[in-house]
């Protein structure tokens, strides 16, 4: 799967995108976020508070209990501030 990070999430982690082999036991966006947080370092700080994060799966906004699959593009970012 492809992971994308934007704004301060990207800055904390230090990369804007990466490829990730989705483990079988991860079935939701929230579980994926927990696994990424467990990497520590920039990931731990980017994923410290899920309430400050939003997610999209395949370019659509989703809640953290939404399912994820192995071929999905998953993005994590702060609440949007365009316009």
């Amino acid at each position, binding site marked *: 799967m492809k992971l994308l990070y934007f704004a301060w999430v990207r800055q904390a982690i230090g990369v804007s995108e990466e490829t990730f082999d989705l483990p079988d036991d991860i079935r939701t966006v929230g579980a994926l976020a927990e696994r990424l947080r467990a990497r520590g370092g920039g990931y731990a700080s980017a994923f410290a508070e899920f309430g400050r994060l939003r997610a999209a799966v395949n*370019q659509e906004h989703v809640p953290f209990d939404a399912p994820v699959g192995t071929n999905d593009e998953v993005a994590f970012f702060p609440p949007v*501030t365009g316009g």
Partner: protein
Amino acid sequence: MIAEIRIGECDFDAGAETEALARRCEGPGAVTTFVGYVRAEPGLTSLTLEHYPAMSEREMSRHVEEAARRWALLGVTVIHRVGRLNPGDRIVFVAVAAMHRREAFEACEFLMDYLKTRAPFWKREERDGAVVWVEALNRDFDAANRWRR
């Protein structure tokens, strides 16, 4: 309904876009537009916009389709700039053409409220030498929630 959506670094000419929309729609009664600018504030030296390219245009298309389902619209133009901007620069343009002004006003405000709360753009400001990410505002989410049904 004729929709045009553009995202990029280029500036836009609000008048030319308004006229182009009116011509494409062949005789609308009303065109409502919104232009958002980088505010001139003490200490603010620049604003940089980043976006999620694969998603931002799709998301804005979804907003335009939703607006077209709710109101009788003749045409819509949405332009959003990205990259580094200075105080006074244009950021965003939304124009809605309709036969009657009420539809044009409501759809234009709806599109701005949705764009502010759902389109994947992020602003960071350079203020007095420090770089800070702009925080989302509760009032923008309240504004967008008015349209829920």
